[in-house]
C-alpha cells in the first residue's frame, strides 16, 4: 500500500492536478474550471486543493508530488534551438525563455509555497512530457498490454513517441524531435485559417469537411516528408516556431497563394480547402505511425494521448481501419491529462502498484473526477440568485418531465454529480436538446452557445441503440470517435452548395441531412458519445427520452458559452442559464424554467 500521489501540469496551457492512490484515480480537475479563465496555465492551486480534500490527505503525507515534464530539459531545448537558428531568433528565445526564468524552472519552489511540504520525502519528482502522456494513455486503459502513440506540439524534445505498455511497465521505443512536429504543423494551419493556436484546432477539424483537400499534394511536396514508418521531417523554411515569434513564415503564405484569414472574417473556399488538406495529411501520418507501432509491439491494442489524439476524425478512421482490435484514447489527451499520467506513472512504475485490468472497463470512472455539490448547496445557490425552482423527490418523474420538454424543443442545462475531467462535457455539465429537430443546430449555435455557425454538435446515444444510427463498432463513452451517420442524405454536394451559397456555411450547416439533423455534420458524420449505466444520470435521461419519443439519442454540448470554460459550480451554471437561450435548468433534482423567472433578475 502506498500513500496517495499528487501530480501537476501547468505553466504552458490547461493546467491541472490529479491524485491517485493504489492504482485508482481519486480526483482530477483543470484549473480553468475554478478560475473561469479558459485554458488557464497558472499554478493549479484550486485543483490541488480540491484533489487533496477529495483524497483526505495532507501534503506531507503524500507518497510523492510529481510535475509532468522536465523544465530544465525544455529550457535547454529552447536555448539550443534559438542559438542554432540565430538571426531573428532572439525574439523567439526572449518570448520562450522569460516564462521559464520566471516560472517553470521554479516549479519546485512554487509548489512548496502552496503545499508546505512536497510529500513524505519533501522532494519534487519530474517525468518527461511524453512519458506522462504515454502513461495517461496506457495505465487507465482497459488493456493488459498496448502499443502507445503520443502526438502533440512539443514536450522537452519529443513531439511524437511510440511506446509499449505491459502491466506496470512502460517502455519508450521511438521519438520524433522538435522542431519536427505534426501537432505544431496542425496549429500552423489553425492560425492560417484564422483560429487561435492551442484552442482553435478543434474548429479547424470541424471546418475540414466543408473543403476539398486540393492542397494535399502541395503540403506533401513542400512542407513534410513522410516515411513509410510514419516518421516525418518538416521543411522549416515554411514555419516559424523554431526561429521567430510567428508560427508560419512569409514563405508559407506565398506557397499557398493567400495571406492568413482574418479572425471572424467570412470563410472563403481557400481556407476550407486548407483545413481539409492538413486534416488529410494528419490522418495519413497518424495511420502510418499506428501501423509502425503495431509492427514494433505486436500488440492488438492501441492507446493514444497527446493533443493530436483529440482529433476524433482521425481516431474514427483509425478505429474503422481495423489495424488494432481495440483503440482507446485518453479523454484528457492534452496537457491536463499529463498530470494524470505523471501520477499514474509514479504509482505503477515507481511504486510498483499493480494495475487492475480485465473487466473490459477503463479506470477513468467515465471522467467524472471533478467536484460535485450537494442538493443543499445547489438550493442555496438557486436561492441566492433568487430563482424560482421546484425540487423533485422522484428522479424518474423529473426525468420523464425533462424528456417531454426536450421533445417539445426545449434546450436544457443539465448538471449532475461530479464534473468531468478533460475537454468534453459528458453528462455532468452538459446542455442537451432534441437531435431530431432540424432547427436545433442554429438555435444552439446562435442563441445558446454564441459560437460559429459552421460547427457541428455531437450526439449522446444509448450504447445499445448506437448501431441503429451510426456506423460505429463498440462503445465511445468519451466522444472521441467520429463515424458515419446511417441513412443520411448522400445527394448533397458540399462543394456545390458552398459555391451556390457564396461560402455561407451557416446556410449549408443547417440543411437537414438525416433523421438526426442537429448532430449530422456536412459530410454525414457525427462525433459520438455512447452512454450506458456507467453514466447513470445521462443513461436515465436517454431512457426517459426514448420512452417518450422512441429515440434514445440527444444533442450533447458542453455547458458553457463561447470563450468560457465549462461550468463547475451551481452558480456558474445558473449564470450561464440566465445569460443564454437555455430554456430550462435541471440541477441535482431541482428544475428552473427561464420563463418563470422574474424579469428583474435577468
Amino acid at each position, binding site marked *: 500500500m502506498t500513500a496517495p500521489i499528487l501530480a501537476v501540469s501547468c505553466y504552458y496551457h490547461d493546467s491541472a492536478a490529479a491524485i491517485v492512490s493504489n492504482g485508482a484515480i481519486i480526483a482530477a480537475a483543470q484549473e480553468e474550471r475554478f478560475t473561469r479563465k479558459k485554458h488557464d496555465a497558472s499554478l493549479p492551486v484550486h485543483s490541488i486543493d480540491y484533489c487533496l480534500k477529495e483524497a483526505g490527505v495532507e501534503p506531507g503525507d503524500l507518497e*510523492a508530488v*510529481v*510535475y509532468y515534464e*522536465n523544465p*530544465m*530539459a525544455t*529550457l*535547454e531545448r529552447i*536555448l*539550443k*534551438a*534559438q*542559438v*542554432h537558428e*540565430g538571426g531573428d531568433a*532572439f525574439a523567439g*528565445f*526572449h518570448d520562450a*525563455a*522569460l516564462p521559464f*526564468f520566471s516560472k517553470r*524552472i*521554479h*516549479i519546485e*519552489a512554487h509548489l512548496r509555497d502552496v503545499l508546505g511540504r512536497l510529500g513524505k520525502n519533501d*522532494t*519534487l*519528482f*519530474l*517525468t*518527461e512530457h511524453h*512519458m506522462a502522456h504515454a*502513461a495517461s494513455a496506457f495505465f487507465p486503459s482497459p488493456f493488459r498490454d498496448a502499443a502507445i502513440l503520443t502526438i502533440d506540439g512539443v514536450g*522537452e524534445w519529443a513531439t511524437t513517441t*511510440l511506446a509499449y505498455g505491459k502491466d506496470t*511497465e*512502460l*517502455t*519508450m*521505443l*521511438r*521519438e*520524433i*524531435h*522538435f*522542431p*519536427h512536429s505534426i501537432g505544431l504543423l496542425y496549429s500552423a494551419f489553425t492560425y492560417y485559417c484564422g483560429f487561435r493556436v492551442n484552442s482553435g484546432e478543434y474548429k479547424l477539424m470541424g471546418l475540414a469537411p466543408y473543403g476539398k483537400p486540393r492542397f494535399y499534394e502541395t503540403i506533401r511536396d513542400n512542407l513534410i*516528408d513522410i*516515411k513509410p*514508418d510514419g*516518421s*516525418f*521531417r518538416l*521543411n*522549416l523554411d515554411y514555419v516559424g516556431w523554431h526561429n521567430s515569434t510567428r508560427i508560419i513564415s512569409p514563405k508559407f503564405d506565398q506557397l499557398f497563394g493567400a495571406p492568413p484569414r482574418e479572425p471572424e472574417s467570412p470563410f472563403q473556399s481557400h481556407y476550407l480547402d486548407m483545413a481539409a488538406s492538413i486534416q488529410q495529411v494528419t490522418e495519413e501520418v497518424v495511420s502510418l505511425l499506428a501501423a509502425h507501432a503495431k509492427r514494433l509491439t505486436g500488440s492488438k491494442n492501441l492507446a493514444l494521448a497527446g493533443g493530436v489524439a483529440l482529433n476524433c476524425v482521425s481516431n474514427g478512421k483509425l478505429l474503422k481501419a481495423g489495424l488494432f482490435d481495440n483503440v482507446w484514447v485518453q479523454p484528457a489527451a492534452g496537457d491536463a491529462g499529463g498530470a494524470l499520467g*505523471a501520477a499514474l*506513472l*509514479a504509482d505503477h*512504475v*515507481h511504486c510498483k502498484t499493480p494495475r487492475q485490468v480485465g473487466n473490459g472497463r477503463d479506470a477513468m470512472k467515465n471522467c467524472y473526477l471533478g467536484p460535485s455539490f450537494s442538493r443543499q448547496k445547489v438550493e442555496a445557490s438557486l436561492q441566492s440568485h433568487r430563482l424560482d425552482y421546484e425540487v423533485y423527490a422522484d428522479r424518474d418523474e423529473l426525468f420523464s418531465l425533462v424528456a417531454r420538454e426536450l421533445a417539445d424543443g426545449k434546450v436544457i442545462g443539465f448538471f449532475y454529480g461530479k464534473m468531468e475531467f478533460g475537454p468534453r462535457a459528458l453528462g455532468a455539465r452538459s446542455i442537451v436538446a432534441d437531435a431530431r429537430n432540424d432547427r436545433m443546430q442554429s438555435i444552439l449555435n446562435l442563441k445558446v452557445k454564441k459560437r460559429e455557425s459552421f460547427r457541428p454538435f455531437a450526439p449522446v446515444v444509448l450504447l445499445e441503440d448506437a448501431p441503429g444510427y451510426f456506423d460505429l463498432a463498440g462503445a465511445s463513452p468519451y466522444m472521441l470517435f467520429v463515424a458515419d451517420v446511417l441513412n443520411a442524405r448522400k445527394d448533397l454536394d458540399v462543394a456545390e452548395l458552398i459555391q451556390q451559397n457564396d461560402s455561407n456555411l451557416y446556410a449549408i450547416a443547417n440543411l437537414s441531412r438525416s433523421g438526426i439533423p442537429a448532430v449530422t455534420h456536412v459530410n454525414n458524420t457525427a462525433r459520438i458519445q455512447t452512454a450506458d449505466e456507467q453514466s447513470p444520470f445521462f443513461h436515465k435521461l436517454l431512457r426517459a427520452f426514448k420512452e417518450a419519443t422512441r429515440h434514445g439519442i440527444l444533442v450533447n454540448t458542453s455547458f458553457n458559452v463561447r470563450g468560457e470554460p465549462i461550468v463547475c459550480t451551481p452558480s456558474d451554471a445558473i449564470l450561464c442559464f440566465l445569460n443564454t437561450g437555455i430554456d430550462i435548468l435541471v440541477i441535482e433534482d431541482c428544475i428552473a424554467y427561464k420563463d418563470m423567472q422574474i424579469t428583474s433578475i435577468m
Partner: protein
Amino acid sequence: MTEKELLKNFYRDGLVAQVSESYRNTMRDANASSTESYFVERSQQADIFSFTTAGEAPAPFAEFVNGLDAHLDTASKRALADRIFRLAMELKSDPSQELSISQYMYTL
C-alpha cells in the same frame, strides 16, 4: 551572487556552448529524403526522477537559475536573456572567439 557573476557562471559552465550536433542533425538536412526513418530510437523504461537531479542539466545551471531567481527582477532577467543569447550567437558563429569572449566575460 551578482548579475555579472551569474552571467559568468552561465557562460563558463557552458550551456550556451552546447549547441549539440544532435540538434543540428534534426534540423535541415539536404539528404533527408534518402534516410529510411526520421525516428530517434529509445529503449528506456519510463519513470520519475528527482527535481534536484533533473535530467542532464548541468548542476551549475541550477545554481544559475537559483541565483537568477534570488537576485534579479523581471527587467534584469530580460536583459540577461538578451546577453546570454547574443554571447551564444557570437560563440556559435565563430568558435575561435571563445577565448576572447571568455576573457571579456571575466573582465565584466
